[in-house]
């Protein structure tokens, strides 16, 4: 037993971090989807990771980096649900009524009678939905669901993979939110001192970090279970989503409280990260729904 990402996995994650620091700085994360960046993600091999033989474990650090950058592209949908098997800009309505980034997609993966189908965007009718996260616009499909080409893919596996992907992104989003809050707490002075020297602020951020750090191995264990097609996939994926989601929601709240009024504006970047946390926390099952799934697995 060795429960650590390998040197290769860590190296790839570092490369991705460097790429995203350049290609997806905060102003880009605010602006939303970019076709140019999508092409770069393709080029980097980030979309067809599964198709090129990487495992769910390899994907966790990459998704975590995507979360850190608040990447506004449908990476979970294209890389985890479609498995990198489709060309163009790919998104999906699997395990969720809502489709993120459907307006810019070429192809949408849908589910029907327990199977997955790919449809051209033009073949379906989309209805935009007003949502909190402007950088991740979502849509309802109101027509055209009977069309499409069947995919050689397991619907439940795709759903569990997407849930894992959201959990991994939530870890990255949460870590970055805590860093923003810590940076601010070092700079911002009140009563003649940095506010980060006050225990009320320290303890809040320490707690936020605690939950993120303890969710991380849980997310990796879920990736392991998926990669092995273990019997405990459902339980482990649910535990990952519940704990990463709660940790991220807690991090967002602690970060906002640390920043105070500036955090409640669009002038500071935090709101972009916070809104993505809320969006991904609700998508593919929220922590309560997943905890109920864990409960039924362990209290059988």
């Amino acid at each position, binding site marked *: 037993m060795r*429960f*650590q990402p390998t040197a290769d*996995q860590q190296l790839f994650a570092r490369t991705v971090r460097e790429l995203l620091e350049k290609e997806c700085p905060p102003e880009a994360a605010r602006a939303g989807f970019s076709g140019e960046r999508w092409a770069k993600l393709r080029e980097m091999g980030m979309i067809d990771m599964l198709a090129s033989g990487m495992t769910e474990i390899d994907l966790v650090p990459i998704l975590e980096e995507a979360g850190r950058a608040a990447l506004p592209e449908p990476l979970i949908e294209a890389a985890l649900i479609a498995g990198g098997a489709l060309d163009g800009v790919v998104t999906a309505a699997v395990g969720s009524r809502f489709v993120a980034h459907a307006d810019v997609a070429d192809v949408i993966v849908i589910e029907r009678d327990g199977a997955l189908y790919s449809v051209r965007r033009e073949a379906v009718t989309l209805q935009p939905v007003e949502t909190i996260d402007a950088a991740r616009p979502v849509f309802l499909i109101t027509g055209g669901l009977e069309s499409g080409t069947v995919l050689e893919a397991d619907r439940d596996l795709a759903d569990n993979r997407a849930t894992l992907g959201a959990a991994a992104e939530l870890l990255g989003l949460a870590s970055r939110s805590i860093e923003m809050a810590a940076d601010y707490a070092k700079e911002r002075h009140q009563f003649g001192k940095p506010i980060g*020297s006050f225990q009320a602020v*320290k303890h809040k951020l320490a707690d936020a970090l*605690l939950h993120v750090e*303890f969710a*991380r191995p849980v997310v990796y264990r879920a990736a392991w279970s998926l990669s092995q097609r273990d019997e405990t996939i459902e339980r482990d994926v649910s535990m990952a989503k519940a704990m990463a989601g709660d940790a991220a929601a807690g991090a967002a709240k602690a970060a906002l409280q640390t920043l105070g009024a500036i955090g409640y504006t669009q002038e500071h970047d935090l709101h972009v990260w916070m809104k993505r946390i809320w969006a991904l926390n609700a998508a593919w099952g929220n922590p309560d729904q997943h905890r*109920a799934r864990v409960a039924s697995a362990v*209290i059988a």
Partner: protein
Amino acid sequence: MDLAFTTQEQAFRAQCASWFGQNLPGPLASMDTPEGFEQHRAWEKRLHDAGWSAVNWPRAFGGREATLIEWLIFEEEYYRAGAPRRLNQNGLFLLAPTLLEFGTEEQKQRFLPPIASCDEIWCQGWSEPNAGSDLASLTSRATRDGSEWILNGQKTWASRGVYADWMFGLFRSDASSERHRGLSYILVPLDAPGVTVRPIAQIDSEPGFAEVFLDDVRVPVANTLGPEGDGWKIAMSTAGFERGVVLRSPGRFMATADRLLELFKERGSPAALQDDVARAWMSADAYRLATFWAVSKLMDGGTIGAEASLNKLWWSEMDLYMHETALRLLGDDATLDGPWLDGFVFSLAGPIYAGTNEIQRNIVAERVLGLPR
């Protein structure tokens, strides 16, 4: 990354489980009673004779050179079997790792084997009446007289101090020093002239704590662990073991979490507690995973620093939460004597000992997040 146990690890687990299956004693009295103390010591001897008392130590000192992963497996099987709490935990889990890291060869040979065999029981002599969370303000002093230290002062909250033979203590050895500087880590025999031990009854009525008074106690300078004046650094290494994976392995908490699931199934109500039971079980399982994560990092040559404080926060608050949840399930029976009530009272101490959780949060904020002091 490979979460599957190797064939060797599985064989080790089977060996542990089979030995516990054949050798487990019945329920023992509290280790803080004279009767329970002797029962626990007898159990420790049996463990030691079979080579199970300190599995990851070098063979030369009474171990079997198990890997850290195997040690975690041992702990899982130990608590799954319902084996008794470890009597010499201060010696085994706090002093021994510190000795292995900083001790001279002579010190290791002298002190480690009787820890493994439980012939010498250790207590910790750090806190003082006016130095608790602010440990660096301690005033007990060590004055050099030739090849001896003369110790004076008062230590307190020494768990199992009433029964202990030895104390590892922190003393101000440079009278002109302040705070973290000029402290030495000294090993003190509690039968030395000038030592007075006074029991303090804990909330469970047993004398779990002791106060230790030192009046001109002479100990050899050779009993200094690590360089003179470097005591703070050595103590913080012990604290790392205390907060980190060594003192509180996940086996014990997983056993509690599994008992909690059983309790919920047995009681079946209130159904509203199902979410809390799931949360408790998940916290324990997450701790188990985080421990395998940390141990793998150590085995790959990594280090664990201030992160040990995160660990301490997690296990202490999770242990309390599991017991609180159990008491809520028990309703009217919650205040009856029994393992849940005992466990609850014990878990209340977790957020206090090994550095209060307020201190741990300060450490995390300052040393992991880089916030100003």
